[in-house]
């Protein structure tokens, strides 16, 4: 795998995303500001806007990857001097950078707004962001390998259902226990390590899986 080709593919991907990234960054910022300055229902509106933007990115990037395959623009890219692994790595690098845009917007709002800072400890916020990022990368990997909107959306839908209803599944007592557990530094590090390991496995599986595909036309 040649690093220069990976970067060129990533740059091209980011250029293709240049119209939608500012929209997500604006949504996240607006949601964070509402959460920071509002009270009562306005805070809920802000939080739901943040959640919607996060879920939107989770769906949007994999949809673009599948569209790339179905719409034959991937075939055009693959007809150029780029190897399958370089193409897939370029997409992953672009996704990492693309996720940083709304993440930075959210982080900036968090740092500059005292009321938001009081709502969630920074460690938990980082863990939530990391988990979200892992889901985005994993969905992109599934989209790249399966080339199927149905498969990608089904897996993503199930994950969203489980993650957004985890409190209901666990019940109030266990949720409280989990919350207390997450407040402990050791648990946080363990969870972060687990997520990082999962992320590495996803990236390796995506690169290997894409390289093993039979046809890129």
């Amino acid at each position: 795998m040649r690093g220069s080709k990976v970067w060129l593919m990533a740059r091209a991907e980011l250029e293709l995303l240049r119209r939608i990234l500012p929209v997500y960054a604006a949504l996240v910022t607006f949601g964070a500001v509402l959460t920071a300055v509002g009270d009562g229902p306005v805070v809920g509106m802000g939080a739901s806007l943040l959640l919607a933007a996060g879920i939107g990115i989770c769906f949007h990037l994999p949809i673009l990857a599948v569209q790339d395959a179905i719409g034959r623009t991937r075939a055009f890219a693959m007809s150029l001097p780029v190897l399958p692994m370089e193409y897939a790595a370029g997409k992953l690098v672009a996704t990492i950078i693309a996720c940083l845009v709304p993440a930075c917007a959210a982080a900036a709002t968090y740092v500059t707004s005292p009321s938001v800072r009081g709502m969630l400890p920074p460690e938990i916020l980082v863990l939530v962001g990391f988990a979200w990022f892992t889901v985005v990368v994993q969905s992109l990997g599934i989209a790249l390998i399966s080339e199927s909107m149905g498969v990608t959306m089904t897996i993503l839908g199930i994950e969203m259902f489980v993650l957004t209803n985890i409190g209901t599944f666990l019940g109030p007592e266990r949720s409280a226990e989990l919350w207390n557990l997450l407040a402990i530094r050791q648990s946080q590090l363990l969870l972060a390590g687990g997520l990082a390991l999962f992320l590495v496995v996803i990236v390796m599986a995506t690169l290997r899986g894409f390289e093993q595909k039979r046809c890129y036309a």
Partner: protein
Amino acid sequence: MKEAVRVRSLRKQYRRFGLGPLDLDVAPGEVVAVSGANGSGKSTLLLCLAGMLRPDGGTVEISGRGWPGESGPAKDRVGFVSDGLKLHPRESLRWNASLAASLGAKKWDAERFRSLSERLGLVLDERAGALSRGRTLRALLALTLARRPDVLVLDEATAAIDSSMRSSVRRFLRESTREDGVAILFASHLDEDTDDIADRVLYLEGGSVCRIEERTKEAER
């Protein structure tokens, strides 16, 4: 002289169809037409040569570098144009060209791309999604020839191009074989393409070569 294309025991198996085992040598500057009925294996062969389809066995070498093993250098040396490729529709032709230019940086010839675009009647600021099939194919040909590949693989690349422009395209292809020694392998259902530029015609039937025909180019007659 080193062969531009060297294929040994190439095999590709589908559920109801198998290509090969197939051996093929193509010299630099040679033009080989791949002919046969629908489903005879023309596209499968060309896709394997262009690195767009993973063969089940055998080796493919492009100017001495090949897959499996040296995929990167081999991919840098081969250009592929097909009716099945689509430029990024929301971007301009210039943007799509810049992608091809950056990935093929070492050999990209900007002057050649500009001149080919002019001769093929392409407007670089036009949105790629607004281009017809024929103009898309012309753009893809210009992009690929500007990369100065050692081997050019064309799968039905002239089918949607109008007849007057098609003769211009064949002229460019002939120029490329003469000036750069580009070896060309192409599949086309148009006899005029085969008659005009092919040095050799490879007839495929059921995934195997059933006949090879040497041709004298019209220009040399």
